[in-house]
């Protein structure tokens, strides 16, 4: 654990709370297993002693800003999380002046679950392009750390080369495991619809039945609704209780959006996301 980094975060948080600049600071604290991290909301200066930052801080805390729109809050963000801030600014879900962003230079996070801390960096960290948050009000800096420069989309390409029926059966089996807990949706900062399509009664897209066809609709359409919006934090995959490889789904669309529209989500708080705009002349495979 980098104690210098943590002191910077704690001092900044304390200043913000003591001065009343923010109502609360959303950060990380030690979980009940004494090993991993969990989100914490510090509302009093004394509470900042609980703040930590280490390689178990996998959670994307930006989601919580959507529950706290009425107050100014501070949030601790890793580079990937900062892209979420840009996404939500772009989609007018949060106002820049109601967020104080405590950015952290991140050496990557490891696989974690309760009472378990992995040894290797998460797949998303191995291909991460950013060592510093893209937007912040205060930067807590770490010494630069060598991170493996993995090649993007290797596992997607591997899936693409498999015969189509192998892919079909793979995904059918995965969707069978889904129990529709919606943890993937609830943890995702990009999923904030007041009424999710899966809960709509009219038109009835999915319904409450937990069965392969319904699960397939749910999974595919959630991924599709995130096309061009998902910033690849892979939190959905982490929280899934039955280990569905959601990253394999979302990254495919991320790759397609990049190839077709030369666009990556969360880099810019301004501008038009690809599915909200168009070019009059563009070749997307449907030429006459």
């Amino acid at each position: 654990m980098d104690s210098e980094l943590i002191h910077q975060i704690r001092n900044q948080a304390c200043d913000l709370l003591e001065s009343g600049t923010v109502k609360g600071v959303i950060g990380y604290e030690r979980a009940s297993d004494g090993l991993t991290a969990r989100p914490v909301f510090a509302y009093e200066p004394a509470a900042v002693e609980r703040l930590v930052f280490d390689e178990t801080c996998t959670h994307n805390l930006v989601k919580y800003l959507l529950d706290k729109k009425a107050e100014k809050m501070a949030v601790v963000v890793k580079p990937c999380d900062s892209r979420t801030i840009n996404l939500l600014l772009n989609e007018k879900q949060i106002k820049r002046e109601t967020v104080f962003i405590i950015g952290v230079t991140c050496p990557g996070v490891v696989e974690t679950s309760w009472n378990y801390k992995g040894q290797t960096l998460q797949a998303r960290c191995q291909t991460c392009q950013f060592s510093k948050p893209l937007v912040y009000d205060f930067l807590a800096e770490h010494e630069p750390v060598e991170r493996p420069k993995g090649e993007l989309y290797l596992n997607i390409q591997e899936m693409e080369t498999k015969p189509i029926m192998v892919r079909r059966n793979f995904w059918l089996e995965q969707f069978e495991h889904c129990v529709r807990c919606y943890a993937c949706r609830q943890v995702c900062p990009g999923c904030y619809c007041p009424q999710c399509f899966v809960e709509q009664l009219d038109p009835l897209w999915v319904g409450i039945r937990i069965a392969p066809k319904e699960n397939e609709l749910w999974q595919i359409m959630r991924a599709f609704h995130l096309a061009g919006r998902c910033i690849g934090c892979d939190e959905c995959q982490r929280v899934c209780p039955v280990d569905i490889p959601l990253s394999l789904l979302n990254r495919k669309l991320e790759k397609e959006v990049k190839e077709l529209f030369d666009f990556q989500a969360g880099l810019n708080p301004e501008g038009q996301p690809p599915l909200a705009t168009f070019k009059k002349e563009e070749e997307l495979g449907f030429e006459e």
Partner: protein
Amino acid sequence: MNLEYQPKVVGFLCNWCSYVGADMAGTSRISYAPNIRILRVPCSGRVNPMLLLKCFQQGADGVLVSGCHPGDCHYNEGNYHARRSLALLRDFLDYLGIAKERLRVEWVSASEGQRFAEIVSNFTTELTKLGPRSES
């Protein structure tokens, strides 16, 4: 009785161009593969990817979405959005095991009755060769 495999095809045709084009094929007495069931929508841009996925789930072997030529959309931009959205969807469905050849996107104007007939017959032939969706 023809016992060979007959693909089930669903077509989403935009009201202003493609549907009229299909109608023209009819009034001109042009024959084309009868496997298609046509649904009239106001614009190709209105076609929700969920609808297409449901078609495949409910037994469609192929889905055709047809709209006005880019630049001629009755609502100015609907077909541009359809073009982007369906390009993504087609690649994504292929990745999920629904062959990209099963989702066809075409631009048919109101006067292109002959062309509509050719498109549908051609699509149906392709689908017959591909086989039922549940098996490929």
